[in-house]
């Protein structure tokens, strides 16, 4: 049985408040990558982080930022470990995180319908209109005007976790945080 002490809750709040280095509107807590914070003895803290993508280069900046914040609050030794299992999913992004993404101009990932598993990849023409190939799918909405009429321009965008889309109503291009 793992119990969390009041101190660990406080440390977690501090570590979780660190902004994401690439999407600074989001905190690590909102992104869902902070897995655990353990106090070991009086001045050692262990933090478990999980990467969004296996090769995400932001993980190193996140580790350094967490160390800096905890050092600034008097923790002498901070050990940040990267854990892969269970794999991070975009379903781990909090509702507040989704709201902030949209506000920032990035369409948030849609939630998976069922228990997480491999992403279902569906076939379509190279430029896929947002009208869902499967009726149970919700469309990707334009974060600027809210229209559901959007099309895919590229499966990979400014970072591995995003796809590039365009709104067919307001004509603005935008990033979409891909479902993972």
């Amino acid at each position, binding site marked *: 049985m793992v119990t969390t002490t009041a101190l660990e809750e406080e440390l977690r709040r501090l570590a979780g408040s660190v902004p994401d280095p690439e999407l600074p509107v989001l905190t690590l807590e909102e992104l869902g990558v902070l897995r655990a914070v353990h106090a070991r003895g009086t001045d050692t803290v262990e933090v478990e982080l999980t990467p969004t993508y296996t090769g995400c*280069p932001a993980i190193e900046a996140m580790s350094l930022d967490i160390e800096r914040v905890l050092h600034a609050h008097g923790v002498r030794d901070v050990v940040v470990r990267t854990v892969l299992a269970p794999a991070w999913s975009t379903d781990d992004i909090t509702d507040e995180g989704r709201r902030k993404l949209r506000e920032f101009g990035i369409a948030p990932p849609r939630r998976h319908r069922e228990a997480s598993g491999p992403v279902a990849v569906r076939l379509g023409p190279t430029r896929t209109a947002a009208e869902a190939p499967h009726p149970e799918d919700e469309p990707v909405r334009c974060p600027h005007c809210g229209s559901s009429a959007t099309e895919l321009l590229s499966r990979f965008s400014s970072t591995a976790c995003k796809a590039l889309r365009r709104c067919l109503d307001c004509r603005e291009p935008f990033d979409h945080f891909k479902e993972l």
Partner: protein
Amino acid sequence: MTATVHTSAALALGDDALVLSHRLGEWAGLAPVLEEEVALANIALDLLGQARVLLSMVGDEDELAYLREERAFRNLQLVEQPNGDFAHTIARQLYFSTYQRLLYGRLAEGQGEFAGLAAKAVKEVAYHQDHAEQWTLRLGDGTDLSHERMSRACESLWRFTGEMFLPVEGVDVDWAGMKDAWLESVSDVLRRATLEVPQGPQSGAWTAGAGRQGLHTESFGRMLAEMQHLHRSHPGATW
């Protein structure tokens, strides 16, 4: 997670990812359109992340990547093949991403030392396979010229595909079942792309089957020279 990691297995999977990542990185600045440049670089980044995890299981990642000689690399000959034209790169992506998705999908279901990484990476690889598939359809079922080039690319890389299904020590999957599933998936994509499934042998007269034993094709040495020269010229240098 404390299971013993087979060095041969971690090197085989890690080197596949590392070498293909480097090849895809060679497209930076040269891809036909900006979106494609970004896509190939992002796929390369995913593969590099896998390589870092896998190589770190059995040693120092930098030493393994930058200080091993050609004969010590255990990657498939398929992934070291030069980029060629865009169709060659897409054919290589189709063959490899289909293989990797099937392999990681199986490893993710097991309890072995690679299950954690595989469960994570298989979701990324699903996007790689989708990317390769969409381009195969577009090029194969495109103009006469794109059809011709895609057909040529699929044919010329076919002889490197047999090696993928030779058992790797420490990787506990049903290799024969993998091969059947791979053939079914790739054949389906090729047919929809109006391309013929190559009929030739899936291994060459002397080359195929050797990458996993450290025997590589001519261009691999040149690729390694480029990949390793900075680290070897300036040992221990940091940014």
